């Protein structure tokens, strides 16, 4: 029996070429009963290896190759200096240039595994991320400290035996093996033999056998596997070149000598070691010694500290009850009772599963955020829990919405629940993360990793580089990869390459393509997940190794989010959500500028303005309901209550679209189709979505009712059909499902219908709870937009990029809603967009006599705000320069451009020019002017200035101000003078606006050309809804979005914006093919075709498209391809 005990996967990052699953597959094909995975300085791939092996019925041994620094040949001075430096935490390695080797270690027991994790953690934490090996390498003392439970092999060509042999011959090698014996114990050291058909390796083997015999150590064969199949040596060679920053042509002998490090069958290995059968036999013996697998991880969730007289459960119960009183105190009795029952049920399950600590920890984070004024809201399946609702973790009432608790937590599933918290992106989220670190200690909490894999572009770029392509060609190749989301069936790679101008018959390009495809999805390096945190009772480093992240102060575990979940490690996702930041900023502005309070928790429930806007699809900027697809659905769905928004959020998802649920639902809603159910028993589940399943919970309930599944089984079903779907598991569960339905007497046709809806849904459907959480945010954003447009728009602009539209579209939309904008201005703008009170013209004062005869003045002010564009919108202006400018201005206003340039030396000439070009310097007045305007009202002064100065005056002045006048004239302040330059024309201003800020506050570019458009018979977007269905029309505008969704069979959707609104155009695949360049590249298009105006959904089905030369300004489109 042969067991491969020394193999590395691609998780050795550029030192292995196969993913763990592939290794397991070949191991199964070779009929090996077990295999060990030893990645370099980590156990990154072990969860995937473990799971794949478990599924395949193979035993997965875990270990690692540890970078080791043999100190034996160093003089004592160097050794001590090295130690000194390490102990001081510095990374100076000038005096101690050292060569490392690597020791293969296998975990025999859980203690061994824990030691391995701690050893790796200690090594990794020695240096920053990506420190060179000699900095992080383990030294002998490290090994001695963590040797227990570990088995040591003497390694291959980079092992300690080979290194000693090379340096000092067989005596040194013998001494080295003796040293290993003294560290790990006689019974735990195996002399490793490898045979890759290399002369020098065989010489080494002879020495190794001799040493083993002398020291009476067992010999063990291995193949030091680096890839599953022989051809993958090419990938490994490419990786080697990448690792050494060379091309394949210049990597020379760094590359492999041959392709022998693949997974060999026991027969092949037995043949290779025919002269040493004991080396093969020993692998089986050793394998049977290795008891540890990842099933025996020993992870323990942290205990939440509670007062002495409390248990965690009693403490949780109290907190839940407090919360429930607040949440349900005013509810009707029926609801209250249902809530109480549900809470009891949940608490009982929580107690049974011993999860009180987890809920308390999440509650604690939420409490911290509340105290700090950070908006926080639970999302995902946690919203199904009444306990979470009561604890304030989520904001959706699961009782009232009849959400399914089992989707969140069930006894059968045997895994931790998943609570995701949405926080405002940026600093606020960082504060919450730091709080968790601080609370659970450095070794108690860490971020989950995010394994960065080779994807289209990165693969193309790096493979191209190692093949020696020049940068220009790399750019072209990288651009070629990953174009539109949708691909025609006949859109082969050859064709893509041909379209991109490349000839695939060229041998090197063919090799490029072959390799670029082969490295897809192979791990490249470890990143940090944006918000996933794992916490542990005490020593997280004994569960999984920790390592430093790029961000200072951050620590990541070696496993990604999925791996942590698979290994049963509990995690809390602290996700940054742009819209949360928008809401938070809006509320702050409403408080600061309007002097009013907006409380998201107590928004008016059925605000007519919100529903009116939603029904009209007037939703630019609103959360989740602003996309083109949403906009075309809204007028048909016509939301009237909150639940309709929940449906709206969930319905435009691939699940319902692929499952063809959208149209039946909308038709039934409009009364054009009768409401039917696959089976009468499903009516209670499907009634509220009119017989059409739209949410994941519904499919769970369907399985429970139709097939008699328990809640846990139903969730198991969802997971079987979910992201990590496997054929086998799906088939098993489908059989079970059909059997259950058979028992319940459901007809075969209905059975099929149910199975279909379940399969299409599990993958892409939204859970209802999640949709409800998102719907709350959607409602809040809509409410803010309807009532505090200025604050909402400013906040939206300050948190870009986010959402579906470019800032220019957001601005134009807000302008159409009557919002005034003011341009960026160095005399007024802050870095971010701010509100300016422009209500002084419109307030009314009325006096009333009160009962005691006193006159009371009531100001009936109609508050009106304009948005002042922030300096962050001036392209090319660095953040620090903008901050310095604002800081300096707050000290004293600037009298001239010259003064501005002198007082803010951080401003570079290019930045001054950028400011001038967008008109931000127009109001910096000349000396004479300031004197004459001293006592005038602020607004009047502004007007006058705008007349006096134009952008070219400023540009003229900037050019002078930016040139150092020399020491003699340095101190002499100079007033701005008028320039001989002409003012910008409309077109020039547009170009400058788009170039300088990416948007214009002036008229829409189409507005300048309306007369010509009229002559061409082009209808403004606003008029289209008023025209009858089927009419031939022409529409034109600036392309603000292009979409080619995978679900739309090659159709392309264009959004064309003009000064009156947004028109939609549908391009058929044929038309797209004929006009590909035009449709992909042109900024302004004229579309001619038949108007489709059904159910207030308006679009032009294009038959002809033409480019329009409207402006030279660089408008931008959001292209989803």
């Amino acid at each position, binding site marked *: 029996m042969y067991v491969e005990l020394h193999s590395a996967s691609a998780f050795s990052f550029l030192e292995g070429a196969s993913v763990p699953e592939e290794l397991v597959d070949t191991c199964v094909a070779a009929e090996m009963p077990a295999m060990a995975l030893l990645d370099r300085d980590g156990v990154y791939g072990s969860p995937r290896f473990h799971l794949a092996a478990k599924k395949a019925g193979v035993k997965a041994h875990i270990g690692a190759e540890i970078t080791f620094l043999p100190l034996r040949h160093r003089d004592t001075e160097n050794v001590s200096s090295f130690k000194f430096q390490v102990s001081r935490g510095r990374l100076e390695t000038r005096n101690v240039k050292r060569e490392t080797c690597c020791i293969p270690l296998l975990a025999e027991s859980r203690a061994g595994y824990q030691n391995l994790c701690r050893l790796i953690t200690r090594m990794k934490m020695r240096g920053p991320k990506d420190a060179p090996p000699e900095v992080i390498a383990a030294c002998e003392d490290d090994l001695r400290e963590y040797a227990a439970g570990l088995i040591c092999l003497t390694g291959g060509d980079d092992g300690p035996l080979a290194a000693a042999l090379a340096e000092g011959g067989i005596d040194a090698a013998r001494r080295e093996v003796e040293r290993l014996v003294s560290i790990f114990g006689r019974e735990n050291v195996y002399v490793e033999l490898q045979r890759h058909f*290399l002369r*020098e390796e065989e010489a080494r083997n002879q020495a190794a056998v001799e040493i083993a015999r002398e020291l009476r150590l067992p010999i063990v064969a291995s193949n030091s596997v680096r890839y599953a199949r022989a051809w993958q040596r090419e990938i490994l060679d490419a990786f080697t070149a990448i690792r050494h920053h060379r091309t394949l*042509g*210049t990597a*020379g002998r760094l590359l492999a000598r041959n392709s022998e490090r693949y997974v060999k069958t026991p027969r092949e290995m037995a043949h290779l070691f025919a002269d040493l059968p004991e080396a093969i036999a020993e692998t089986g013996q050793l394998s049977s010694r290795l008891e540890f697998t990842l099933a025996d991880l020993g992870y323990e969730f942290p205990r939440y500290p509670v007062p002495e007289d409390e248990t965690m459960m009693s403490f949780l119960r109290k907190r839940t009850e407090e919360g429930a009183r607040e949440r349900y105190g005013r509810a009707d009795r029926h609801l209250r009772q249902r809530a109480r029952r549900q809470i009891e049920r949940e608490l009982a399950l929580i107690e049974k599963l011993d999860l009180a600590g987890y809920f308390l920890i999440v509650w604690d984070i939420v409490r911290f955020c509340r105290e700090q004024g950070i908006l926080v809201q639970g999302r995902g399946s946690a919203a199904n829990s009444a306990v979470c609702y009561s604890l304030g973790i989520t904001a959706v009432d699961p009782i009232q919405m009849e959400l399914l608790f089992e989707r969140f937590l069930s006894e059968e599933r045997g895994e931790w629940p998943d609570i995701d918290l949405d926080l405002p992106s940026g600093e606020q989220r960082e504060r919450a993360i730091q709080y968790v670190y601080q609370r659970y200690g450095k070794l108690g909490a860490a971020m989950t990793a995010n394994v960065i894999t080779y994807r289209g572009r990165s693969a193309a770029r790096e493979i191209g580089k190692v093949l020696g392509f020049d940068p220009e060609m790399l750019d072209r190749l990288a651009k070629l990869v990953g174009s539109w989301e949708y691909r025609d069936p006949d859109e082969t790679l050859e064709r893509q390459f041909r379209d991109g101008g490349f000839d695939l018959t060229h*041998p090197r390009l063919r090799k490029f393509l072959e390799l670029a495809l082969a490295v897809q999805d192979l791990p490249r390096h470890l990143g940090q997940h944006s918000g996933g945190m794992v916490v542990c009772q005490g020593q997280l480093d004994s569960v999984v190794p920790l390592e430093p992240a790029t961000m200072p102060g951050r620590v990541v575990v070696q496993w990604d989010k999925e791996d942590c979940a698979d290994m049963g490690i509990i995690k809390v996702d602290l996700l940054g959500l742009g819209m949360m930041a928008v809401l938070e900023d809006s509320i702050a502005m409403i408080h600061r500028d309007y002097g009013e309070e907006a409380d998201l928790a107590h928004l008016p429930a059925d605000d007519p303005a919100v529903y009116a806007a939603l029904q009209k699809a007037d939703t630019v900027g609103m959360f989740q309901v602003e996309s083109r697809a949403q906009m075309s659905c809204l007028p048909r769905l016509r939301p009237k209550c909150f639940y309709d928004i929940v449906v709206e959020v969930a319905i435009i998802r691939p699940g319902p679209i692929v499952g063809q649920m959208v149209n039946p639902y909308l038709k039934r809603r409009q009364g054009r189709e009768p409401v039917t159910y696959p089976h009468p028993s499903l009516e209670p589940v499907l009634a509220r979505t009119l017989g059409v399943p739209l949410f994941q919970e519904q499919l769970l309930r369907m399985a429970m009712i139709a097939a008699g599944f328990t809640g846990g089984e139903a969730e198991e079903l969802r997971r079987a059909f979910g992201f990590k779907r496997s054929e086998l598991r799906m088939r098993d569960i489908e059989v079970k499902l059909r059997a259950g339905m058979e028992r319940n007497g459901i007809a075969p046709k209905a059975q099929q219908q149910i199975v279909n809806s379940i399969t299409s849904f599990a993958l892409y459907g939204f859970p209802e709870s999640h949709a409800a959480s998102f719907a709350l945010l959607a409602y809040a954003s809509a409410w803010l937009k309807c009532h505090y447009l200025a604050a909402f728009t400013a906040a939206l602009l300050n948190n870009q990029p986010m959402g579906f539209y470019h800032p220019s579209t957001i601005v134009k939309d807000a302008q159409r809603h009557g919002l005034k904008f003011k341009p960026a201005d160095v005399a007024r703008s802050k870095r971010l967009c701010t509100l300016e009170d422009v209500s002084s013209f419109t307030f009314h004062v009325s006096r009333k006599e009160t009962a005691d005869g006193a006159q009371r003045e009531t100001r009936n002010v109609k508050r009106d705000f304009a948005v002042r564009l922030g300096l962050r919108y001036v392209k090319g202006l660095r953040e620090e320069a903008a901050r310095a400018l604002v800081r300096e201005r707050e000290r004293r206003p600037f009298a001239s451009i010259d003064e501005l340039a002198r007082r803010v030396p951080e401003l570079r000439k290019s930045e001054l020019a950028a400011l001038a070009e967008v008109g931000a310097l127009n109001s910096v007045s000349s000396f004479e002017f300031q004197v004459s305007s001293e006592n005038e009202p602020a607004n009047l002064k502004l007007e006058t200035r705008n007349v006096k100065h134009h952008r070219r005056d400023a540009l003229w002045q900037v050019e*002078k101000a930016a*040139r150092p006048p020399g020491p003699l004239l340095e101190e002499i302040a100079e007033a701005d003078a008028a320039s001989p330059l002409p003012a910008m024309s409309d077109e020039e201003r547009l170009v*400058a606006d788009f170039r300088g800020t990416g948007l214009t506050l002036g008229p829409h570019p189409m507005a300048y050309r309306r007369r010509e458009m009229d002559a061409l018979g082009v209808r403004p977007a606003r008029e289209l809804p008023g025209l009858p269905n089927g009419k031939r029309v022409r529409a034109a505008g600036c392309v603000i979005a292009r979409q080619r969704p995978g679900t739309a069979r090659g159709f392309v959707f264009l959004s064309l914006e003009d000064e009156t609104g947004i028109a939609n155009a549908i391009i058929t695949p044929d038309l797209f093919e004929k006009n590909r360049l035009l449709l992909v590249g042109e900024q302004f298009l004229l579309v001619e075709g038949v108007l489709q105006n059904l159910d207030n959904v308006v679009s032009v089905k294009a038959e002809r498209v033409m480019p329009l030369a409207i402006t030279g300004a660089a408008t931008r489109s959001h292209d989803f391809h």
Partner: protein
Amino acid sequence: MNATIYVPDFLVAAVVRLEPALREKAVAVLEGEPPVVTVAAMNEAAAEAGIEPGMTKLQAAAYPVELRQRSPAQEAAAHAVLLDCAQAFSPRVEDTAADTIVLDIAGLERLFGPPAKLAQDLARRASELGLEANVAVAANPDAAIHAARGFASVTIIPPGKQAERLGSLPVDVLQVAPEILQTLDRWGVRNLRALAALPEVAIVERLGQEGLRLQKLARGAVERPLVPAEPPLEFEETMELEHAVELLEPLAFVLGRLLEQLCARLGARALATNELRLMLDLDAAQIEDSPRDRVIGRSGHRVIDSAVNSMTRSPDAPMTRFIRLPLPMLDSRLFLKLLQLELRAHPPAAPVMKVTLSAEPVQPRPGQGGLFLPATPAPDRLELTLARLAGIVGKQKIGAAEVLDTHRPDAFQMKRFAPSAPQGLKPRRESGDREIGSSEHLKTDHLMTRSPDPAMYSTMALRRFRPPLAATVEVRDGEPVRIAAGEIRGEVASVSGPWRNSGEWWKSTETTPRIDTDDHGSNWARDEWDIAVPGTQGIALYRIYRDLASSAWFVEGTYD
């Protein structure tokens, strides 16, 4: 007065000149090497068809345009034509740019008529020579240049009217630095009139002296002397022979005379040479009778010769040989020796009718090296020795062998041997610094040589057969059992292996030399065996290998 000839889309014009059929067509010129060949320039028709600079060849091929590869030789020729054309009209000509020539036409009225006529003639002459050019006449060279670049066909600017006439031209005819152009664009200054109108002092304050210069150019007010193009320094001697010379001896006599002349001329200008070019016109009547290979030299050197000079491929062209020297020299006797060696190695294919010898002039090298530098062989003598050796073994087989950094056994290349450039005393490399390719890196290959116990792990030297001997090997159970390769034949007494090596898998089996210029060879894979074969003088050890691509067996060498 000055006239300027300017050829728009010069790269295209250079191509069209030789293919008049393209004149009315859309043409784009490509540059670069496969797989990336992009559009470098195109004419107006091609631009209208949608061609843009930077498109790849495949993309451009989708448009109805004629595509041609850019040719520096054609461009040089077109430029020479332009220069000739100008020089036919005026003795004072400025070679401003590849596509622009300025003529001083002051005082030429009597010869060629008024400026307008001269300009017309100039344009017509250029057109006759295949180049459609714009011609402009103005009071100063720059105004004429800008007018020619900006206005199509013939433009005459009367003195004093420069500012007025140039005013409508875009600013970029001035060839302004990009940052200034950007500033002017921001200012809305798009044409020369606007630039000319700006106040002078303010311009200097903002754009410095360069701004002022540009403004003067815009006003057509820059007076500068023409920089007349100097005829190139040419060192060439030719001798037509009354009787065709067949033997090398009399030819050497002729060459010696020519070389003495050349060296004397070079010496008079304190110059030396690093390249000699010998052109022999052969008796055409006799060439046709002789095999083609002889014209080129010996058949074995054909490829190398063609790499040296593609002209030698044509049997009609005179025979041309180059002598390239590592250092500038001026020694006619040495040169004669080198030429004799060269001709002995590559004798002319037919009697010689005419001898042309030219030398590339360069500055001579300094006479003395550093005082503490090690003595190197005198470069002239070294060169002579190398040339002699090359004459015997062939050019590609002489030089310094350089081991290549690859696993491919016995891979090396020959580098031209040249004494290293004088260097100061360099500190010794610290022992810790290790480089790939340094001897230390080879450590693992010679693992056992460092063993303290040489008796146990003795190293055996391999004597390589270069080239390896082809062998017939009988294989049983995957192992060689019998071998026959010339004198090496017999049963294999014992065997060890296979030792498996492969590499350069990213190269195709047939390399395309255009792309893989930096590469050596193609992909390879082989299994090596060490075998013991009993012979007449006891057992001999051999290294044999099987080339896995061809399945052929070879004996690579024998172990001592």
